[in-house]
């Protein structure tokens, strides 16, 4: 069984929506599903700390307002947009705020659970991809630095690429630091020497 289904009842749900029929239907279904929930309206200034999944009525607010409210750099939340219309400007808001799933008004009980699961999946995958991407970027950067440093050493010492790399690695071990750090130092030194 997928973790997202297993952990579902640990999720804190926040509904940002006027308190009317659709809101009641949704809260009752969230209660049946077994998640704890809160309701707020109008749109508060900031997102409560404990919210994991946010259902938000996007009808009466600009994408900018909604984004300010939803953007949590430290702990991204799962966002499910509740929409009354499917016109292009509404669709644009859904994309702008990065909603992970959408529910149509009037909200029915059936579909809420699938929507929560799919939205959480997109959110967690997105977070994982972003993390992987920044790791890869860093790694690529490091490889580039070590390469630059190797070429500097090859040029100054007249040694092979293999020997240049060994030199960098030995320095890193002796100074208890990374090959990237040593490479950066070599590049810095080269720049200074060249400018003298």
């Amino acid at each position: 069984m997928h973790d997202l289904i297993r952990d579902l009842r640990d999720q804190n749900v926040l509904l940002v929506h006027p308190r009317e029929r659709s809101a009641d239907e949704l809260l009752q279904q969230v209660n049946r599903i077994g998640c704890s929930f809160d309701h707020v309206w109008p749109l508060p200034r900031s997102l409560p700390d404990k919210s994991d999944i946010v259902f938000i009525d996007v009808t009466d607010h600009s994408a900018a307002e909604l984004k300010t409210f939803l953007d949590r750099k430290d702990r991204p939340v799962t966002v499910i947009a509740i929409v009354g219309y499917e016109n292009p400007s509404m669709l644009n808001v859904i994309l702008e705020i990065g909603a992970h799933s959408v529910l149509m008004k009037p909200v029915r009980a059936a579909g809420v659970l699938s929507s929560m699961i799919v939205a959480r999946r997109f959110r967690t995958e997105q977070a994982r991809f972003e993390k992987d991407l920044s790791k890869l970027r860093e790694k690529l950067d490091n490889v580039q630095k070590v390469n630059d440093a190797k070429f500097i050493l090859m040029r100054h010492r007249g040694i092979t690429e293999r020997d240049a790399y060994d030199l960098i690695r030995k320095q890193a071990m002796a100074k208890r630091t990374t090959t990237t750090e040593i490479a950066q130092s070599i590049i810095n030194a080269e720049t200074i020497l060249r400018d003298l």
Partner: protein
Amino acid sequence: MPDNAAWKIGLLFSTSGVTSIIERSQLNGALLAIDQINSRGGVLGRKLEAISYDPGSIVPRYGELAEKLILEDKVSVIFGCYMSSSRKEVLPVVERRNALFFYPTLYEGFEYSPNVIYGGACPSQNSVPLANYLMGNYGHRIFFVGSNYIYPHESNRVMRNVLRQGGGEVVGERYFDLQARESDFRNVVEEIMEARPDAIFSTVVGQACIEFYRAYHAAGGDGRTCPIASLTTNEGEIAAIGAEASVGHITAAPYFRSVNSPANRRFLKAYGDKFGSTSDVTSCCEATYSQVHLFAKALEETGEMDTDNLREALLGATFDAPQGQIKIDPDNNHTYLQSRIAIVDEQGEFVVDLKVRRALKPDPYLVFPAIHDWSFRTDKVAASGSRNA
């Protein structure tokens, strides 16, 4: 409509086809309750009139006939269905027409519709007591056999998880067509004999259930040493399988015919008087009977067939059912039910061995029932003559 016109209600139970044994017992439960209500003067002076169709155990027919009941017969309250697949056909029809649908059958959970009142158990109400019972009394190695549709798959998922929590192990898992015959089960029975599990968990339903128990018996399987445990096999099917092939097998359900209570004695007496015998009284029959009574009580309150008003009157309603007191949970339209475990004796009658202390709250969206949840704790039922077994 004249003041004394009957209240019309629709019944959708198959009296032919693969699930007709159980659905006929549900139909009888409804007809008995209607009789009882009419014999005391109906509801607010008007009789209940049942319009009944036989979908022939053919899944799409349930949806078509629900539509016919609503459009042609002008019915807005329907009782019916056994298999989940047939309920799924009726569901969009009653939602579109805003009718009220009573579903008197255990099912796999994970559904809520404002137009449905669920009268049977969901897995949390019967799987946990059964898993505890099997592991406590027989052992930890369980073989799964089921019919190939949604209920057995989901039911097995729940059971597998509950077993694992208690250190149990699933040693095999096989699924069969609803039309499977005794000969189709020969291979799996052989496999069971080789695997030598401590018990078999069966979610084989309908006619195939009878065929499976027979195949197990024919190959030398004995319920007294390695029982088939089920949530669905009931009195009607045991009668068809026969006492000799059924002895020792186990079922967990809210109700058994042998429950010893004044409400159940009255129910069985009335059933016997009307149908000549109580041999096909089952938990689904009892659930249908109770749901018709709950409906009549609600109608008494609303005085009209308006779906929204009826629902309001039904949510939270209680009934002194043959199984004990039941209550419709206003949170989810499902029903607080008793949970019992019974073993078939030499005469082919279920003898209740354990029951939970109080009616269990339905939790249709529970992904993993916890094996040690206090509410699932059961008490030994001292003797078959004990009060409220």
